[in-house]
């Protein structure tokens, strides 16, 4: 309307070219992009890869799969026993890890920990448990107790502890203060406050993360045998070492079935319990 008289105000704003990002954002995005490219180029140019092997890979994989069909099911009894052992390792380990993780979660949560020392002790347990992979824990326990299911169960317990403790600890930190204050006002002891004020509030999370962890542990326990810690991995390793590829195929199919069944059971439990 009054284009000539108004040089500032809404009109100037309307004529300004619209940009999605400010120049600073654009430079930032460009720098990020450049960084990704540089990192990729550096990795690809210095990594120790024999490139012909990569071009050969599809053919080699095809060859491997051809040797796997048809799956040889004659060993099904041994495979089934190993599968049951795998499930048992995962379940027993989850069961004990759940109980051990509760006190750790309580001392690692800021609002329930008795003092700073226990807080840091709790955090130390959580971090060291989570940063070491199950396989590495298994290597350690196989070195200590020798090959077998004990090493596997302990490895999974030690790994699950940090995961369960961290998630339950976070749930404890987010609880509603009011019931606890009410309990404290009636003169309840510390144990009673925990039992009636804290635990009922975190029980849903507690069951949810336990079921989730059981599902993860089922997958993890399929590879424990590769370092000698029991379960189906042991016979998988044996079949691969003897180039019994058709048996390998059966074992791999059994693992897929186990993992899918585990997911189904976990989903059913979650619906039923929570």
């Amino acid at each position: 309307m009054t284009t000539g008289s108004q040089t500032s105000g809404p009109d100037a704003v309307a004529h300004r070219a619209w940009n999605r990002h400010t120049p600073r954002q654009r430079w930032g995005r460009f720098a990020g992009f450049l960084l990704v490219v540089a990192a990729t180029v550096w990795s690809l140019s210095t990594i120790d890869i024999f490139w012909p092997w990569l071009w050969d890979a599809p053919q080699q994989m095809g060859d491997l799969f051809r040797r796997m069909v048809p799956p040889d099911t004659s060993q099904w009894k041994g495979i089934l026993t190993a599968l049951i052992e795998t499930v048992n390792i995962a379940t027993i380990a989850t069961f004990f890890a759940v109980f051990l993780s509760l006190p750790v979660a309580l001392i690692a949560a800021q609002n329930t920990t008795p003092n700073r020392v226990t807080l840091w002790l709790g955090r130390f347990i959580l971090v060291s448990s989570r940063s070491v992979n199950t396989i590495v824990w298994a290597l350690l326990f196989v070195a200590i107790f020798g090959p077998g299911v004990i090493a596997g169960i302990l490895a999974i317990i030690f790994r699950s502890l940090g995961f369960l403790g961290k998630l339950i600890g976070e749930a404890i930190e987010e609880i509603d203060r009011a019931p606890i204050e009410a309990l404290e006002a009636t003169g309840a002891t510390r144990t009673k406050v925990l039992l009636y004020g804290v635990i009922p509030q975190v029980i849903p999370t507690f069951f949810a993360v336990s079921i989730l962890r059981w599902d993860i542990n089922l997958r993890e326990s399929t590879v424990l045998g590769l370092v000698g810690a029991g379960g189906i991995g042991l016979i998988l390793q044996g079949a691969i070492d003897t180039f019994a590829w058709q048996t390998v195929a059966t074992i791999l199919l059994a693992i897929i079935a186990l993992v899918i069944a585990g997911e189904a059971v976990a989903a059913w439990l979650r619906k039923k319990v929570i």
Partner: protein
Amino acid sequence: MTASTSITRKTWRKPPFIANPWLRWGLIVGIGVYIVWATSTLPFDWERVREGLPRAARIFNNAFPPSFERSGLLISGFSESIKIAIVAPLAGVGLSVPVAFMAARNISPAPIYAIGRAIIIIARSFHPVIVAILFVKAVGFGPLAGILTLTIYSIGFVAKMLAERIEEIDWGQVEALRAAGAGTLVTLQYAVLPQIMPRQIGLTIYQLDSNLRASAIVGIVGAGGIGGTLMNAFGRYDYDFALAITLCIIGVVLVSEAVSGQIRRALW
């Protein structure tokens, strides 16, 4: 009569977590029976556990203090792990985009949807260590097997999350472009991709971090990286060097977790 007594009862009882008593006691008894049965079927050897305790003490004595003498080996192992962890998620994320489109119910026709889902299920069912063994057999020892393994691992996770995001997109933009006569590719590029881009970038950064963890263990079966060094140290009873490697893995994982957390927070 009965109603008034129940009201005047003084002691309050905590309501049970599972309201149905049959389900509650069924679950408790079932779990108890199962644990007892499962524990009894496992071939525990308590003799070996008893022997193991002094061995544990010996191992910990040997492990302290951690030895950083062979730091050259440590650094070369880590740099290989990091390279694997950079290349693999890029390849994996690149490949996971088409797989995610295939596995999104609202975009793909039924048979392609089934193929996409099958790829995701198979990629997710196998632990990376199992995939690594197969790749080591197919393409030989070294980082190539590690990269291929973690590519599969990334596809399983990223494609699954991305497909879920694609199924949740705002369909209005797709309809608008279709109404304007845009082809399938153009519709994907302008209506679908911009909506899933933030999730895609976040997942990629998450994968960098998670692949760094995984690349530390695929080396245990010979697929390159620091895991191989760790396995050798264990095999030679070099527990002080093994402890040094483990401490470094913990440090690197914590740093990468912090960095990726920062980047993701800045992006979202």
